[in-house]
């Protein structure tokens, strides 16, 4: 206890030096916390976007469809979705089911043409799974056969407004070109960049007719009540609907995106780690100075009968106090910055515009604070400082007392 007291006093011998070292640690740690908050936020936003607009919690395809999803294989579709939907609805964890037709189409405004992702949605049931209806910011949801919903960004790029006339051109399941005219009934503004920039949505039966699918759909989307039990729901439903179909969770469908996320997370963590290593060099430097200038004092303590262990303990405690102080400071700064990012969000659109970063989020990132990470980061900071304090003091205690006393 007394050694702690002595260490505490020693820490404040050079208040400025202590503060500079502690702030170096705190910069490293707050960077770690902020980067973690932002990545958590980005992941959460991406997950929500995927679930709420793109896939729901699970998707059911005809066997073989998903493997070739990139080419939109309209020859591998679910021909009789009704029976499957009825089966799926019986599962206790299922909150909502809807069917969709997804296909590639070009949208023409009479002058320009853009490739888009077109969806035929079941207007009765879509809201059980997705939030498209709630995202209509102008005009109305789909009602008539010729109604079409488009994203606000696409509307801006193509010069569309409510009531604008457009043509959707695509190939049907037999490879024959087909086209249909629509009127823009509503503009949607989701938080998913893909939908706002690239998607057009029409009624399911219109899409089926356009693609000559009869009653077939490309996918059935499921929302569950308890997403923690998604895996068991997936197993149950797979068993329920039989081997002609396959069921994927939203995570499986977006594995590539979360791989990117993991990589980004790692690289951001590495940057923060480098900052922390620089801070650690600062601590070594501080401790080295503290030890060097106090070598005669170490000699005095040894003359009084202090053992090396006690002296090492004292210096390590000093390092630990500086580390704990810096880490605490870092956590406070990190949390404050994270809170700002979590509440206000960080708008990157000024830097990157509408650039596609390969991640289904918009350029305003709302952070998500993870307190366990903050605790771990704090402990990490303290442990690192203690470890790097050991080296200089070990060196000093190796001196004979007489050499330490004589040291100038």
């Amino acid at each position: 206890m007394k050694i702690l007291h002595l260490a505490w006093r020693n820490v404040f011998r050079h208040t400025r030096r202590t503060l500079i070292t502690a702030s170096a640690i705190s910069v490293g740690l707050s960077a770690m916390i902020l980067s973690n908050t932002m990545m958590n936020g980005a992941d959460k936003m991406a997950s929500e976007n995927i679930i709420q607009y793109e896939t729901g919690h699970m998707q059911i395809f005809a066997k073989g469809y998903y493997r070739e999803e990139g080419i939109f294989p309209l020859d591998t579709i679910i021909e009789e979705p009704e029976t499957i939907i009825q089966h799926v609805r019986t599962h206790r964890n299922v909150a909502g089911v809807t069917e969709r037709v997804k296909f590639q189409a070009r949208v023409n405004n009479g002058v320009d043409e853009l490739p888009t992702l077109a969806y035929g949605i079941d207007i009765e049931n879509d809201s059980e799974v997705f939030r498209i209806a709630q995202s209509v910011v102008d005009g109305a949801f789909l009602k008539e056969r010729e109604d079409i919903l488009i994203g606000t960004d696409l509307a801006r790029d193509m010069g569309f407004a409510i009531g604008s006339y457009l043509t959707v051109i695509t190939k049907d399941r037999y490879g024959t070109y087909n086209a249909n005219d629509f009127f823009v009934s509503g503009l949607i503004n989701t938080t998913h960049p893909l939908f706002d920039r690239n998607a057009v949505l029409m009624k399911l039966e219109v899409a089926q007719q356009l693609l000559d699918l009869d009653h077939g759909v490309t996918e059935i989307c499921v929302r569950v009540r308890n997403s923690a039990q998604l895996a068991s729901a997936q197993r149950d439903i797979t068993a329920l609907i039989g081997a002609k179909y396959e069921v994927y969770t939203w995570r499986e469908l977006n594995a590539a995106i979360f791989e990117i996320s993991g990589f980004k997370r790692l690289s951001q963590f590495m940057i923060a780690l480098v900052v922390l290593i620089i801070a650690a060099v600062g601590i070594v430097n501080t401790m080295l100075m503290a030890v060097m200038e106090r070598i005669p004092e170490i000699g005095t303590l040894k003359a009084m009968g202090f053992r090396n262990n006690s002296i090492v303990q004292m210096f390590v405690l000093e390092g630990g106090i500086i580390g704990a102080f810096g880490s605490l400071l870092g956590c406070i700064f990190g949390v404050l910055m994270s809170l700002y990012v979590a509440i206000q969000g960080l708008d990157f659109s000024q830097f990157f515009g509408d650039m596609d970063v390969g991640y289904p989020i918009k350029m305003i990132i709302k952070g998500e604070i993870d307190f366990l990470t903050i605790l771990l980061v704090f402990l990490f900071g303290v442990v690192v400082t203690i470890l790097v304090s050991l080296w200089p003091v070990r060196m000093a205690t190796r001196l004979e007392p007489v050499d330490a006393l004589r040291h100038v």
Partner: protein
Amino acid sequence: MVEVNELHKDYRVGKVLFPALRGVNTVIQDGEFTAIAGPSGSGKTTLLNIIGCLDSPTSGTVYIDGTDTGTLTTREKANLRKNQIGFVFQTFNLIPVLTAFENVEIPLLLLDTKTDENKDRVVGILEEVGLAEYLHRKPNEMSGGQQQRVAIARALVKRPSLVLADEPTANLDSTTAREILELMQELNRKFHTTFVFSTHDQLVMDYAERIIGLRDGMIVDDKRKETPA
């Protein structure tokens, strides 16, 4: 009792071997107030350091209360210093961030004494050295003489049998030096603690009961006074 037999200590400076002690033999009895006198480089500090187990001899033996210190491990030497030997340094060597009270308390932290008892002992010894009013001052708030008093209190607080003082008055003016010497003499008589101090100052020698003269690493003189000043 301190017994020194055929003590040699060589320092290597580059390729040159420099003999600091060249066969020192002496016995210092319990309760003696002994000065080791001699010019700079005569080996006074080296002798004190070896007696105090801060340094090891090249050859020869030192016995403290019958223990051959040459046979002790580092840990045992630390224990011997902890329990039996107090040091007073020329430059006081107080811990600057601690108060007089806390500086004096340090040696007791290593002993298994109770906190209350420690407090009484620290206050008692600081009163003894005339610093009852200065318990909570830090070294930089005290004069050189006061700092050396704290150092003496620190050396004596654990009631060692031997106090080794290396040029204890060299950094003090003559009036303060006199006060410090009188204090050490008084404590020597009161507690029957053996004091061995090195000096090249005539004033200090005037106070000593016994003066061991050292020159070029050898004892050249050993005088006892019947009635010290």
